[in-house]
């Protein structure tokens, strides 16, 4: 082998020379690991009494409910997400262009808002049943909009966009050649979908599914609207009801462990199978749906959009009208500004973190960077308040140490340095939303052909120059997708923002909390609508851009 070639090889696969990259990825790994370690450290004194009590009373029911939700929401988001993504990405029917981006809109709506609106509209005392009772023959129909099926339905509608978004991008990326080859080998449309398209898109679909399931596990807001007990309920019961934060941390760490095992298990099942799109070529022609198929497709998409987005938005706008815009004052602009500023900064920080992790996994490929990468995805499965407290405890610990050192050095009281700072808040966002950014960043990196980077290196590009001239332009679409997803997520985020924001840093989500925590939903409608509208911009732009990019390629 020629010496020059070997050198190139060793840079790509061999012992890493990327000291800065390695240092950076270990820093990200450590930042995410510290708050998680704080949670696990609660096991130092096992709260046996609490565990015994929970096991003897509520735990069996909670586990049943949680399993039902994970299974139901998992299947639901898979069917809705993949089915709708296939329809909008690869088929043609009336309304497809609208649904293509419209089906992403529920992302902008917090799950607990959807839960509250659906519960209010459909429950016994709600307008839907009042209307039904007017219809002859249905006067005696009465049901409660609660229980497992309702919770599954609401969470599915709230979380399917993750699967939809990632599956859609994967379906759009499948080239004409692959599909034609499948046809030539004798597969029909369904056979192609099941045996070629789905396996090829599997990593993307699984990434979306993992997000949906982790959101389900971490959710507290939506399930508590239905008074539906899940594992998260036990965590909060231990903390708020039994005043036992260590027991809550123990429960939460158990949840984390389960998620980590599930993620590792999936990776092992997938094994060494890799699907590379070799020659993209022209996009394959869309499947034209006609007659009842077209109607069915349009109805399915339209119904999901109607219940998942139009209905709750209509209700929110109605409430704003009832409260006559009460509470709209000049502070509103500041709220919106801070919401966007925090979201934007968090997006920047989180996407940078995801990029470092993705690069390290590819370029370094060693155990520490793999562990850092795996750790970084876990924060998404933690209930928000628990993660926030983990971050807060870490920073308070560092502050206390700093103060002690300062006093020993002869200084006075330093006061809080990190806690209550923007840095703490951004760290919490980073840990929570790295999992969201990882997917799009990873698939962007996947598409980056190593030969391009090698060529640039051969021409003398190094370090930041390489990043600026090669990586950033080529990765931009993926990075933007990740950034916008994180932006929308951070704007909706509530528990970490509440606990860790500096004084005066109220956001729209904080305003929503102030009202909903006392049950004043009508007054919460104005900040909620503003939040959704602020999130709509990025979501629509995201959808349009990705559709445009693929149509024109």
């Amino acid at each position, binding site marked *: 082998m020629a010496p020059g070639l070997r050198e190139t090889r060793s840079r790509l696969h061999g012992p890493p020379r990327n000291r800065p990259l390695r240092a950076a990825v270990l820093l990200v790994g450590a930042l995410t690991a510290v708050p998680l370690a704080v949670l696990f450290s609660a096991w130092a004194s096992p709260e046996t009494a609490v565990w015994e*009590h929970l096991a*003897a*009373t*509520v735990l069996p029911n909670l586990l049943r409910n949680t399993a039902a939700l994970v299974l139901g929401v998992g299947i639901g988001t898979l069917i809705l997400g993949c089915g709708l993504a296939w329809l909008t990405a690869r088929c043609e029917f009336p309304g497809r262009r609208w649904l293509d981006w419209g089906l992403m809109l529920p992302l902008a709506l917090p799950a607990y808002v959807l839960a509250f609106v659906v519960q209010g509209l459909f*429950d*016994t*005392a709600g307008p839907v049943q009042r209307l039904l009772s007017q219809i002859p023959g249905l006067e005696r129909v009465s049901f*409660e909009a*609660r*229980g497992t099926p309702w919770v599954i339905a609401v969470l599915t509608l709230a979380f399917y966009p993750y699967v939809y978004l990632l599956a859609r991008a994967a379906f759009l990326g499948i080239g004409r050649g692959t599909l034609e080859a499948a046809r030539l080998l004798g597969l029909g449309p369904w056979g192609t979908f099941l045996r070629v398209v789905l396996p090829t898109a599997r990593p993307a679909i699984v990434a979306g599914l993992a997000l949906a399931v982790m959101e389900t596990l971490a959710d507290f807001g939506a399930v*508590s*609207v*239905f*008074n539906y007990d899940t594992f998260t309920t036990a965590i*909060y*019961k231990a*903390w*708020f*009801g*039994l*005043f*036992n*934060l260590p027991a809550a941390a123990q429960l939460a760490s158990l949840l984390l462990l389960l998620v980590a095992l599930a993620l590792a298990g999936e990776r092992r099942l997938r094994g060494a199978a890799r699907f590379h799109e070799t020659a993209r070529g022209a996009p394959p022609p869309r499947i034209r749906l006609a007659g009842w198929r077209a109607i069915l497709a349009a109805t399915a998409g339209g119904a999901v959009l109607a219940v998942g987005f139009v209905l709750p938005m209509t209700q929110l706008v109605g409430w704003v009208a009832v409260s006559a815009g009460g509470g709209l004052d000049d502070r509103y602009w500041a709220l919106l500004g801070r919401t966007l*500023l925090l979201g*934007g*900064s968090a997006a*920047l920080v989180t996407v940078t973190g995801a990029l470092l992790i993705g690069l390290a996994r590819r370029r370094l490929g060693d155990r520490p960077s793999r562990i850092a990468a795996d750790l970084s995805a876990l924060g998404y499965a933690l209930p928000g*308040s628990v993660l*926030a*407290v983990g971050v*807060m*405890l870490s920073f*308070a*610990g560092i*502050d*206390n140490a700093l*103060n002690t050192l300062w006093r020993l050095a002869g200084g006075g*009281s*330093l*006061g*809080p340095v990190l*806690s*209550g*700072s*923007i840095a703490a808040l*951004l760290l919490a966002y980073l840990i929570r939303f790295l999992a969201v950014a990882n997917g799009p960043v990873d698939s962007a990196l996947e598409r980056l052909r190593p030969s391009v980077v090698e060529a640039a290196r051969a021409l003398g590009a190094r370090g930041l120059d390489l990043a600026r001239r090669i990586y950033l332009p080529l990765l931009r679409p993926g990075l933007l997708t990740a950034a916008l997803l994180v932006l929308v997520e951070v704007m909706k985020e509530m*528990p970490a923002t*509440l*606990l860790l*924001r*500096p*004084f*005066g840093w109220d956001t729209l989500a*904080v305003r929503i909390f*102030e*009202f909903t*925590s*006392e*049950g*004043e939903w009508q007054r919460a409608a104005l900040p909620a609508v503003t939040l959704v509208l602020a999130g709509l911009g990025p979501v629509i732009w995201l959808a349009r851009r990705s559709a445009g990019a693929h149509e024109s390629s």
Partner: protein
Amino acid sequence: MRSTATLLAAVLVATVLTPIAATAAEVVVYSARNEQLIKPLFDTYTAKTGVGVRFITDKEGPLLARLRAEGANTPADLLITVDAGNLWQAAEVGVLAPLDSPVLEGNIPAHLRDPGGQWFGLSIRARPLVYSTERVKPAELVSYEDLADPKWKGRLCLRTSKKVYNQSLVAMMLARLGEAETARVVQGWVANLATEPFASDNQVMEAIDSGRCDVGIVNTYYFGRLAKERPAMTVAIAWPNQASSGVHVNISGAGVTRHAKHPDEARRLLEWLSSPEAQGLFASLNLEYPANPAVAADPAVAAWGSFKADPANVAEAGRLQAAAVMLMDRAGYR
């Protein structure tokens, strides 16, 4: 794109590096009582005294965890929370400082403040019964305990036991009746439920209004709000336990923190909040009852009638909260 990033970075660095300015004439408050219920009072106080008030709001649990973790470094001078259980817990973990204030002791009755002087009630929240005016006669409603009687089978609606208001209610019952009798009552409630417990007091009243059940237990201010929204609602308040222990009441209240940087300013703010001048506003902002007996309740609140309140010290609700939660879990009250 890049210039936006630079701008963001600049703003961030500036914010991160800005020291938390601690001027002498201010009080820093951690509050689990919502902004709309405290800010008007703080604004009035600042206008009157020139002392600024900075505050941050959150749920009680996270706020308390933060106060504990920050220890001596905490910027907080005053902790305001809802529910005596949370105040008791704050005192228990040692984040509050005992206060020797004749003003507060004069303004706030003994059963609405910590015997050790670490916290003081600022408003009273009563949790009476509500009933269907179409299907129940007020005379039938005797007490919380009576709702365990089989005559209410299939007619009772309750909010979830995960809400602290119900935990306090059962904790005070534990203090009064003991373990066995309280367990009997709670089991009776569960047996009488018309449907699974609800997520909110509002849902309880809506269920009564729509005929799903006949009687429930809610805080008065939720009733006040819903009644204003739906004048045609066929739900009314009944005051239970008038011949015995009195209506269950809870408080919202506050205490000066152990490591307060402005303890004197914090004490003065707390004293002012207990004064007749502030008490009317403090309670009426949320349709609650003033803790200071010298101050009359808001006319809208007074219209629900007067009642005998439970005179037991609300600190018991904190001491027995964990026991109450476990008791409700065992009784299958979700």
